[in-house]
């Protein structure tokens, strides 16, 4: 339903169906109200009411999250502003352990009485559910940090930029797209500010301020004679930055045979112009001949393959079966990790998890159960070496502390294990994209993310993209369409042929990684340099109805 809400709000219909979208929802407020910040001293008072109330009812552990979740959407199509919405969601979520079982309750009524009632409800749920437990919750030790704070290192708070400036940008993007030959264009600016406060009986009182931005567009061109249409979505990445993301300098642009690509910052207007030209080329492109190809995958595309085929199967809750009823389990079972020789990929493949990379969507100072964040290896020289875990799972891996992967998408949602940034490390040898392409005999260069689907244990996947260029004997010879590739995760990562060097390293990501019941969305980034995979199965997706 949330995905549908997003499609309804943005009014982009079929175009939005291509997006991995499950947004966090809230109430609508004025732009000025978004700049107000609740005093941490007030939040500490509220937190102490909840901590004391839960303790008095019999909780042996309590954490309290007071969250103010702000979104701003500016939505336009062609020459019209469709919607400007500011939303706020403010409330408190209280999680307890009583009789060895978790309990959780949340309320948006911030008076002491309502908070105490919510705390009591959380304890009563925990006690009621404890009879269904097979073993009590076992939390990894966590020291209290006292009163601390963390702010995302943004340069320009996007909520402070006047709405008119944002509207003018989007309308100029639309104008450029239409002048370039598009028939329709929808553009959207989506801003997020999470102001969240965490307090626990371990003695932490943590105040954090997190910002995210995602400028995007969907452009359509129709061949009226045949009735066929093609789309081209923006090559932007959602990022953990402020409005400075939209201020691209020459050093943020990578010129390739397939157009300009963006590193760290984004030129939305320029991308709209090239998109209008490329969508015309897509209509005229040659339909792909199915078969085996060497794929050259740009980071604007590869992030999603990493997300689905590496990020998800290394989530420990999936490995253990906690997601068996919804998101699924994982083929990366504990025995493979224990063997210390499971070849997830070949020796070129090094993958790190982190919660700290500047500008990434996952970057925070502390996670949503008060653990200070860091980075660690997940795949080292091709071998599976670690997972992503939280406090009540750490003991299963023999860890003495959580890896800091706990997150809730709202004060009203219970926190659980969510994906850290999971990134493919750049190649150690000097290698540019041009040099990589020169060595490909029969291949396809894929830019941008498209359709995506993977099974519930993360073996079999299928991905589309935005732009597909045919490579013959080391040269790009033209554009292809109707391309999707299917592979098995382990075979795919063992077919890795080369990885470009750190100069090409870029982040992609999603605002809407969905998991859990009730479903929650989490924002996460994935870095990589352009990477080659040898002999991957490509199918043709053209059909007639």
């Amino acid at each position: 339903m949330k995905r549908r809400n997003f499609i309804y709000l943005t009014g982009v219909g079929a175009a939005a169906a291509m997006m991995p979208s499950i947004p966090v929802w809230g109430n609508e407020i004025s732009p000025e109200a978004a700049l107000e910040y609740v005093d941490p001293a007030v939040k500490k008072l509220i937190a102490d009411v909840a901590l004391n109330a839960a303790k008095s009812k019999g909780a042996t552990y309590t954490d309290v999250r007071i969250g103010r979740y702000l979104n701003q959407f500016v939505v336009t199509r062609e020459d019209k502003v469709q919607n400007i919405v500011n939303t706020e969601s403010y409330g408190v979520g209280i999680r307890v352990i009583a009789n060895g079982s978790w309990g959780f309750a949340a309320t948006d009524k911030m008076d002491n009485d309502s908070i105490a009632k919510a705390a009591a409800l959380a304890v009563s749920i925990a006690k009621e559910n404890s009879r269904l437990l097979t073993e009590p919750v076992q939390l990894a030790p966590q020291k209290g940090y006292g009163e601390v704070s963390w702010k995302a290192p943004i340069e320009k708070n996007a909520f402070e930029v006047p709405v008119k400036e944002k509207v003018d940008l989007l309308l100029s993007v639309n104008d450029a797209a239409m002048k370039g030959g598009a028939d329709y264009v929808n553009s959207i600016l989506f801003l997020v500010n999470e102001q969240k406060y965490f307090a626990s009986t371990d003695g932490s009182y943590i105040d954090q301020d997190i910002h995210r931005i995602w400028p995007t567009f969907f452009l359509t061109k129709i061949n009226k004679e045949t009735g066929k249409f093609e789309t081209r979505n923006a090559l932007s990445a959602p990022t953990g930055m402020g409005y400075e993301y939209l201020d691209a300098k020459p050093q943020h642009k990578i010129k390739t045979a397939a157009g300009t690509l963006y590193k760290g910052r984004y030129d939305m207007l320029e991308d709209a112009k090239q998109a209008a030209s490329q969508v015309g080329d897509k209509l005229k492109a040659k339909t792909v001949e199915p078969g085996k190809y060497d794929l050259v995958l740009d980071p604007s595309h590869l992030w999603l393959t990493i997300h689905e085929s590496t990020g998800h199967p290394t989530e420990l809750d999936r490995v253990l079966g906690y997601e068996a009823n919804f998101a699924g389990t994982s083929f990366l079972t504990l025995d493979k990790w224990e063997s210390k020789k499971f070849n997830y990929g070949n020796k070129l493949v090094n993958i790190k998890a982190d919660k700290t990379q500047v500008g990434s969507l996952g970057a925070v100072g502390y996670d949503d159960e008060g653990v200070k964040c860091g980075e660690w290896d997940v795949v080292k020289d091709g071998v599976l070496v670690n997972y992503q875990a939280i406090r009540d799972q750490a003991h299963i891996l023999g860890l003495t502390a959580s890896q800091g992967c706990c997150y809730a998408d709202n004060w009203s949602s219970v926190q659980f294990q969510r994906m850290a940034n999971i990134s493919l490390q750049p190649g150690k040898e000097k290698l540019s994209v041009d040099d990589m392409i020169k060595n490909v005999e029969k291949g396809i260069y894929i830019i941008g993310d498209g359709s995506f689907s993977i099974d519930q244990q993360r073996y079999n996947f299928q991905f589309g993209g935005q732009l597909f260029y045919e490579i013959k004997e080391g040269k790009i010879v033209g554009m292809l369409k109707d391309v999707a590739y299917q592979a098995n995760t382990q075979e795919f990562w063992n077919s890795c042929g080369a990885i470009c060097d750190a100069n090409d390293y870029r982040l992609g990501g999603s605002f809407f990684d969905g998991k859990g019941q009730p479903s929650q969305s989490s924002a996460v980034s994935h870095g990589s340099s352009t990477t080659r995979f040898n002999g991957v199965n490509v199918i043709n997706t053209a059909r007639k109805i």
Partner: protein
Amino acid sequence: MTILNKEEAKALLEKVLSYSKADECEINLSGGDGGNIRYARNSVSTSGGVSQSSLVVSSAFGKKLGVATINEFDEESLKKVVKRSEELAQLAPENPEFMSFLGPQTYGPDTPTFSEVTASLTPKERADAVAQSLKVSKDNNLNAAGFLEDSKGYTAMMNSKGLFAYNKSTSVAFNVTMRTNDGKGSGYATRGYNDFSKLDTKKDTTVAAKKASMSATAKAIEPGKYTVILEPTAVAVMLENIFFAMDARQADEGRSFMSKAGGKTKIGEQMMDAKVNIYSDPYNTELPTGTWSGDGRPQEKINWIEKGAVKNLYSSRYWAQKTGIKAIPQPDGAIMQGGTKTLEQLIKETEKGILVTRLWYIRQVDPQTLLLTGLTRDGTFYIENGEIKFPVKNFRFNESPIIMLNNLEDMGISERTVSAESNVNYLLPPLKVRDFTFTSLSDAV
């Protein structure tokens, strides 16, 4: 949280409206409580309760609209939210597609969307229902993961044109996955109701348990085109991709599966087998839904697809006025007219085919043809000479639901089911379809 009754909601909305100084004002009010339990590895994991309410004020000056929301209902807060929405409207750019709010509407009689049993559910009753599911799992030496969620709430709206609407509803959703302890078999069941007393977690878990045991020795067979029997849970996730794409504007603009050459649409043309009839009806007793949409338009019985031809598309009020069609809102659920056969009869009449109990991770590959990809999950079986012969390994498919309904051979009795992708409830039959396209094998269980 108190569920305001119709009179209480009306009185509150009238008070808010009395503060308005805008050309037009519309207020949407909602509130509710929800609770849930999640379990996995035969043990409870997370659970919770949440209570929320909101009052949304939309103020318009000419074609300029401002929207503000609050969740406190004291007099000062109510005055503040009205004033804030008016300030925002004055700052907003004109929206040429703004439509003046609707005047008074006539809605049909209330539908049975609210159940007292569900509304008064306690944490203990919720835990008891889960305990029954866990017992089935332990008795059968299986591993259960599941989710039970219930909610109660009300919605109301009023505007300065004299429109007033009110509804209260409850819902309960239950789904469970049973796995064999060696991880080689898996089965699933899902149910959605308004009335908690209709839910039988023991019965549904038993169905999932049977599928888990039956699917444990799966054989690999070649991907390709097969006759399939899709259970309603699998039908839901395919068909809803048609429902979500039935917007009139997208079709008229040439960018939907309903568009065709020369700027025309395929309205009225037979695109699917003549046995295909799909409609929505808020008054259906098995699937009652609200009698009004979020902008106040009445929800009525609508025939969307008749004898394989699309007859109606939903539309915004703006687009309907511009193109001279009836402004039909998007429905809250859909119903496919089924047949009289049971699933067992469909299997019995199948010479060779594959029984698909669930499809998962459905994504659109091509909006032009509604080509979808996804995978079978939680029990896929080979049928020969009218019998289930053996479980088969899961497949990835690439298929359009339009092509699938064109290849419809037969269908069974419609039943209420829930989409595991969107959580929307539907009434759908099991379908027997020829030439369903499986493109690769998956090792996943």
